């Protein structure tokens, strides 16, 4: 019976475990792996190839590779001889066309593809499609430059055929310079810890999290207590109104804020009428941009806090308030001496949950100020997003972005442990000392 119960438990837990692996452990692990690579748009994610290019040749100038070998690497020619004709026979070239190549071009060597192609075009059986003509030149080509080799073995084999004098060390040097894929590195972290920008990002993030968190907790608490003392119907309406920021779709909510703060928006027009400075408050000055970012996020968090605090308030035995009124306590005394002391756990929960949530949230900043003006409201998570996934130049640096995300995960974990110790989480989940 016990075994069956255990088995059932495992079955019931399985979906949750699978989801945890798929949506938390796997992404977190991949982030950890990516963080120690130089993955970017140009290296790709799925692995690289080997190509000798002009850039590679320039890179090889800084190595001790024999200049003759380097020059040889850059050579390209097309030769029609017995060997290349044999190779062409096994390629998919129309026999009549190949026969004409053999008859008319045997013994010729071309330094440029254009010259060879010109001669091929003059043959009566030339293919109609230019692609077929270009494919027909391939068996006659003698070069490695700009040819993409999918793996090291093929690349080295081609090099050995083309540059028989190359030693193993030479091949290693050339292959290292020619590899297009990503490599393992710690440079992302070194870069993050040494660049001047990092300190500003950290300061922005700390300011954003602290200010928004304070708004979330204090406003949420204030609202919950205010609603608590309102008549239940009025309180219900008030509750629903304050839920709007949380239940409104994020993009719509951001657009509404734009209408509110943008040039010719509500605030702009109102300020103009009142003779106050009218400008784009969302992006027109650093203080107003920060105020917008904090309020946009703060209202969402405050409504979240309000729901939780309201629930917790209802759990306080109402008799305590009645008896305090009998003793002559006013509202303030009730709040400070009865309500707040019993709200420690909900405040802990909202504080810790919102800290972690704010640390990793960037979507509302992205949709409103996008980190501007300048990069004054850019926080760590937004910068990580821009670095890894979304920027104007299209130069997506997955490795560096992942390193930034990994640091965020580590900070989040450290803060979680800190919060749990600070607020004595064990006490919260321990068995009650008195059995009811």
């Amino acid at each position, binding site marked *: 019976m016990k075994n069956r119960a255990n088995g059932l438990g495992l079955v019931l837990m399985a979906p949750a475990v699978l989801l945890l692996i798929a949506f938390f452990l796997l992404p977190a692990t991949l982030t950890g792996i990516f963080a120690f690579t130089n993955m970017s748009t*140009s290296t790709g994610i799925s692995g690289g190839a080997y190509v000798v*290019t002009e850039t590679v040749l*320039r890179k090889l100038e800084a190595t001790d590779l024999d200049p003759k070998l380097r020059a040889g690497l850059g050579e390209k020619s097309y030769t029609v001889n017995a060997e290349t004709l044999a190779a062409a026979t096994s390629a998919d070239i129309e026999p009549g066309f190949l026969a004409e190549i053999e008859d008319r071009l045997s013994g010729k060597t071309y330094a440029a593809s*254009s010259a060879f192609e010109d001669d091929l075009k003059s043959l009566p059986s030339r293919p109609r*499609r*230019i692609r077929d003509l270009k494919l027909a030149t391939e068996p006659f080509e003698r070069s490695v430059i700009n040819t993409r080799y999918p793996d090291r073995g093929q690349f080295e084999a081609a090099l050995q055929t083309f540059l028989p004098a190359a030693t193993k060390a030479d091949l290693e040097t050339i292959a290292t310079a020619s590899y297009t894929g990503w490599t393992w590195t710690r440079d992302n972290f070194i870069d993050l810890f040494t660049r001047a920008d990092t300190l500003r990002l950290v300061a922005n993030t700390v300011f954003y999290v602290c200010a928004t968190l304070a708004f979330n907790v204090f406003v949420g608490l204030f609202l919950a207590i205010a609603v608590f003392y309102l008549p239940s119907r009025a309180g219900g309406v008030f509750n629903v109104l304050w839920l709007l920021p949380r239940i409104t779709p994020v993009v719509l909510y951001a657009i509404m804020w734009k209408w509110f703060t943008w*040039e010719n928006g509500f605030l702009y027009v109102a300020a103009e009428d009142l003779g106050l400075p009218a400008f784009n408050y969302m992006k027109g000055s650093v203080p107003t941009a920060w105020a917008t970012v904090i309020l946009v996020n703060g209202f969402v968090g405050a409504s979240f806090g309000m729901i939780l605090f309201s629930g917790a308030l209802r759990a306080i035995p109402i008799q305590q308030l009645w008896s305090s009124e009998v003793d002559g306590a006013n509202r303030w005394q009730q709040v400070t001496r009865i309500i707040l002391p019993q709200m420690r756990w909900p405040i802990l929960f909202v504080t810790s949950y919102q800290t972690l949530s704010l640390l990793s949230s960037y979507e509302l900043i992205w949709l409103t100020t996008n980190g501007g*003006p300048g990069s004054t409201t850019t926080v760590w998570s937004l910068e990580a997003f821009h670095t890894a996934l979304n920027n*104007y130049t*299209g130069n997506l640096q997955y490795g560096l972005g992942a390193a930034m995300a990994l640091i965020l995960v580590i900070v989040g974990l450290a803060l979680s442990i800190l919060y749990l110790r600070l607020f004595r989480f064990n006490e919260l989940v321990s068995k009650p000392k008195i059995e009811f």
Partner: protein
Amino acid sequence: MSILKTTKTALLGSVLAMGFASGALAEDYTITVWSGGTGETGSYRWEAIQMAADILEREYAVTGQDVSITVEHQEWSGWDDFKQAVTLAAEAGNAPNIIVSGHEDIGPWSRSGLLRPVEDYVDFDAWPLSQIYPNLIDIASYDGVVWGLPQDAEARPFFFSRAHLAEIGYSQEEIDALPQRVQDGEYTLYDMLDDAKAMQDKGVVAERRGFMPRVNNGTDYWQFYVSFGGDMVDPETGKLVLDRQALTDMYQFFVDAADMGVVSSTHLGTTWDDWHQAVSSDQVGIWHGGTWHKAEWEAKWGLEDFFGEIQYSLIPAGNERGRANTISHPLVYLLSNTGTDDDAVIASELITIATEPRIAALHAVKSGKVAIGSEEAKVPVFANDRWSSIATTELLPYATAVPNDIDFGVVWKAMYAGLESSWTGTSSVEDAVNTVESEVTGQLGDAIIVR
């Protein structure tokens, strides 16, 4: 089996056989096109491919081949989302067959294996590619390989309000002579700031509306770097270059402009709509933009007399180190590695036809771009369009282009971040330049020369 039944069966068999036979002969292709930076006036970026598909089907038909081509397209008005979409789709193996993007993407995308070299599929000696301007072919090349076909090209001029120049004392002759003075280096960026300030002081434009630069990141800001003498690439070694002095002078210029009050220190991030609305309705003294903006102002913002209201010129030199210039950011048709080689052949034939002068001229005139080939400049619809011709003959010869180097994105990102931080006063110009230097040298090492 009755005769009727037998006949029916035979008929059905024949119909099915014919169906299979025709099915075996017909070739169906679905070619996807994704284009970035494509607004209302840029629709020929993908419509040209649809037109090309119709022509190509007819070409195959007259040679006895039944080829059916379906063109599917997606367009993005911006660049961030577009480049993200292409990159991630490519990683997932779902990149579109044809990508219409900026030439600077060739470097990283070719290295990652996302692209097929277009030179392996097309004949540059044959029509219509034989008449494409060679410098545009160069811009579509990287590491000695031609990766893309030019889709369009443009220039990015300075614009002056004729009315506001007149209001601060310019005569009509002086306004007409201004482009030449700019070109000769007699009228610099700081002269421009003085004029913008004069317009504000005189009350003909509002505070911080004297000068209204581009509102967000873009190749435009490299023009100012060139105006102050900066090079992006070392011609001898081919390596990227960071010119500290040019960068310092460029950053200082925008800081000075903000200090003079002719532009807001938080200008970057203004919306395009606000910018278009302001510059097209004569609320701004001097600004810079693209040749294509004329088409947008006329189509969307109610500008009626461009030549009567607006003067244009190259971007003025910043100081004696620099020169008057403009920058072109040609877009290119790129072939992705998606699909079979036959798909790529069809896609290459489509982009070749799309560069036909008549088709390219439609895009150039509709979107205010310059010609990509010598014959396009002779197509009547283009030749008779005053602005397109001016842009091609007066501006394009002075155009530079950003390099296709794989690592240029790192330099670009750092340059713009430094511009933002110094312009907004978040950091000093010196600190911003130092940060750019440490950023690019940290990431690129010897691949960049710092002067």
